[in-house]
């Protein structure tokens, strides 16, 4: 698996039309509604089919939890900023937290047999498995994910 990109720079501008732009306090009780909204927007825009819903929910859950709990350390006074953009052939989601980011060294390599029994550190791997692109910016305080649009038959095509 390729090395995770964590850049000090701000994320590049979202490509396409921003269809959702919201700031949410770092409260996990607000997470289900946020995720449901994003899922319905992507399904409604024909970007995601029902077969992909399971993965999408997982990826959004990981990203939102990381931003709220690790980035903002669960401080409800701090917001996460969520922006979703679509274009004809795919979608992009950017989530910014108000934390200080993280180091790639903090993420265990789960291919290492000694890491197999760790009880954490699998979220980013799962996200990278399904997304076409996952990059971190502002030292890790901003996540940018991209995925190509699904095709009606269930497969996705390249962006």
């Amino acid at each position, binding site marked *: 698996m390729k090395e995770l990109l964590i850049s000090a720079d701000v994320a590049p501008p979202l490509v396409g039309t921003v269809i959702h732009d919201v700031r949410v306090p770092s409260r*996990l009780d607000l*997470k289900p509604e946020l995720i449901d909204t994003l899922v319905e927007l992507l399904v409604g825009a024909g970007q995601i089919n029902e077969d992909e819903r*399971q993965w999408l929910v997982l990826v959004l859950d990981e990203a939102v*939890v990381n931003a709220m709990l690790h980035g903002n350390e669960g401080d409800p006074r701090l917001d996460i900023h969520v922006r979703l953009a679509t274009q004809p052939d795919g979608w992009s989601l950017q989530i910014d937290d108000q934390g200080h980011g993280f180091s790639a060294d903090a993420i265990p390599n789960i291919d290492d047999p000694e890491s*197999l029994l*760790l009880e*954490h550190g*699998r979220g980013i791997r*799962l996200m990278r498995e399904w997304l076409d692109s996952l990059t971190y910016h502002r030292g890790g305080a901003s996540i940018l994910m991209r995925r190509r649009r699904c095709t009606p038959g269930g497969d996705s095509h390249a962006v």
Partner: protein
Amino acid sequence: MPCEHLIIQAYDGIVLAQITKPRLLEAPVINAIGAELLLLPERHMKISLILDMEMVEYLSSAMLGKMVAIYKGVKLSKGRMALGGVKASMMPLFKTTQLDKLMEFFPTSKDAIMFYKRKPL
């Protein structure tokens, strides 16, 4: 108080834990299920634990981590652990995270029970 998201049955040295909550994403749910399941290896030495996943539709990495914790508890009690009825669409999560190498998987919990009955510890 027993966890409302689990139905646990024990017979012939085999413990079957059926997870009844389809979405394993929220921390209170994951923690409640984990707390109850982590007690099982303490109560049953050499436990043969089967997690029935048939009703589960969504799970997070936090739940995968909890499964690893339960697995470690089971191994400490010299027991074994299997997952039954994991949806085909969910198997990539276990493969991607290498957990398919750690735990035993069966198409259904019934298959796991039959296998464990044939090969008692």
